[in-house]
């Protein structure tokens, strides 16, 4: 066998997956992490529930039936009913919708706003970078929960305004990550090399800088979900989030305030769901961080 055919065979074998790609390796590491896999399965299940909620229950979430108010778990109402006789299970299922919407949409909106600003600031440097950095500092220094509370108050409480308010304070996370990484990648020789080939700046940013940030941004996105879930529950609890009669776990918790001593089921089930969700998404994000960290490669 000549040297050429040998190296050719090696190259072909490499192409056939002999060298695991970065994402294949990351998935392998992720799969080994039990908490992360639990988080992923939970995320898939809760998403399916949110999408198909009307199919899963014979009741409506806002149908008031005083006759069956404040019943404990039973065959007809596995999680009991609330003070207006609404089926708790139905409300629990429907409440996964605002939870996911807030978690995902604020994360996406943060990426849409934060990534371009971060990339430009990191790549251009100079005055624009100074401005963006100060802005990031400002937002990091202020207590974001209070700002969100205030913004929702001004905008009037609703699901949409909650997402808007959390985006206004939340984009800095993605921006900070992207800026820092761009700053590091910008100094690499290969950026100079592609610029020497006459590749326009936008192409350099999109094809040569951003892909480097993708794993970090994916993690950042996942890590933001538990925070958003908790924030949505908290704000709804305070009456600053989802408006009744649409259900939210935090709001259901607030409603149980006058009843929980005698009818604990009103308090227990929403609490379990909030805790489970935060835990699962946190586990998934943590698993992602470990899986995407190349230094952990085995």
């Amino acid at each position, binding site marked *: 066998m000549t*040297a*050429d055919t040998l*190296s*050719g065979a090696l*190259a*072909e074998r*490499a*192409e056939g997956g002999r*060298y695991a790609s*970065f994402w294949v390796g990351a998935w392998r590491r992720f799969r080994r992490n039990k908490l992360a896999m639990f988080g992923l399965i939970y995320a898939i299940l809760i998403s399916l529930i949110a999408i198909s909620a009307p199919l899963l229950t014979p009741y409506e979430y806002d149908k008031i039936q005083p006759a069956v108010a404040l019943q404990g778990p039973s065959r007809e109402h596995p999680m009991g009913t609330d003070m207006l006789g609404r089926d708790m299970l139905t409300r629990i299922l429907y409440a996964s919708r605002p939870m996911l919407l807030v978690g995902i949409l604020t994360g996406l909106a943060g990426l849409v706003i934060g990534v371009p600003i971060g990339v430009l600031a990191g790549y251009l440097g*100079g005055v624009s970078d100074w401005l963006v950095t100060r802005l990031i500092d400002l937002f990091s220094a202020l207590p974001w929960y209070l700002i969100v509370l205030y913004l929702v108050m001004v905008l009037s409480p609703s699901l949409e305004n909650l997402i808007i308010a959390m985006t206004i304070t939340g984009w800095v996370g993605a921006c900070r990550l992207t800026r820092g990484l761009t700053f590091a990648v910008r100094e*690499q*020789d*290969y950026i*100079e*090399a*592609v*610029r*020497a*080939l*006459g*590749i*326009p700046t936008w*192409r350099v940013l999109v*094809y*040569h800088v951003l*892909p*480097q940030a993708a794993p970090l941004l994916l993690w950042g996105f996942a890590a933001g979900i538990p925070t958003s879930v908790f924030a949505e529950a908290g704000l709804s609890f305070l009456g600053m989030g989802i408006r009744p009669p649409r259900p939210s776990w935090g709001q259901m918790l607030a409603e149980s305030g006058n009843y929980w001593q005698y009818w604990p089921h009103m308090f227990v089930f929403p609490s379990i769901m909030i805790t489970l969700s935060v835990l699962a998404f946190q586990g998934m994000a943590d698993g992602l961080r470990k899986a995407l960290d190349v230094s952990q490669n085995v």
Partner: protein
Amino acid sequence: MDRLLLQVRNLEVVFRTGNGLVRAVNGLSYDVARGETLGIVGESGSGKTVSCLALLRLIPEPPGRVVGGRALFEGQDLLRMSRRALRRVRGGQIAILPQDPTAALNPVMTVGAQIAEAMSVGLRLSPRQAAMRAVELLERVGVASASARAHLYPHQLSGGMRQRVLLAMAASCGPKLLIADEPISALDATVRAQIMALVQGLQEELRLAVVWVTHDLGEIARLASRVSVLYAGAIVESGTVRRVLKEPAHPYTIALLGAVPRPDLSGERDLDYVEGSPPDMAHLPDGCLFWPRCRYHTDLCMRERPGPLAVEDEHLAACWHLDTVRQRTQARG
């Protein structure tokens, strides 16, 4: 058609740093004719890389800045043209073959895609055409089973292969000038000759002019027709390779040549070295940049910087005491 392709005149580049103003390039001038190979030789820190990057305005600003000079490429000043026009020159007219083939490739993009990208932007080829051309180019630069290797990432290739990929990228858009910035310094001795031969082959094929920057006089002797010697960001001597290597006129060139090991003369002479240490570019001397290390220096050297003086036709050296230097070296030699 004008024979002159690139004319660099009095190029000056500075960097603002914590240690004050670093003058990396100090009045650099050279000419490159179409299709010829100009060697530029200089030691570490003499401004080799910076002067290459400055031509295509690729030095980071800030801290760097081109503060003076012209770089006329086919009559147009690269240092003053619009960003749009400059982008067409980059890759399409002037390509750079970088020093470190490992760092100069995007680690998360296949090499085929990287070669193709330059062509889909520069030559407006469709993705399909660009990908096919990329494989052809890889074959041209001696990469075996190119169609399979095009799908590999840089870390799956050897250093020599990566430099071939970079050469394919540099040649992809049919440039008229290739600036090779120490392209083989980081490579194995066995691969160096192959890369040099490839560049020579491409040069004939594409009528490519080459500026070959190096610290190795052996490469210059093999590749270049003319050579310019760089010291502290300025040319101290230039001429045909034969003349300069055989009868160097500037004290720095003489010392540099004395420091080249010669197996054929081993035992007959001691290896020379250039006395003193390379200049601190933040605190350059007045007058001639070389005088602190020069055994021939006089008051004149410390006061005024010599311009290029003719030693003979097409052989210039920037030294006030060319005659003295010649007499002394002949007497010694």
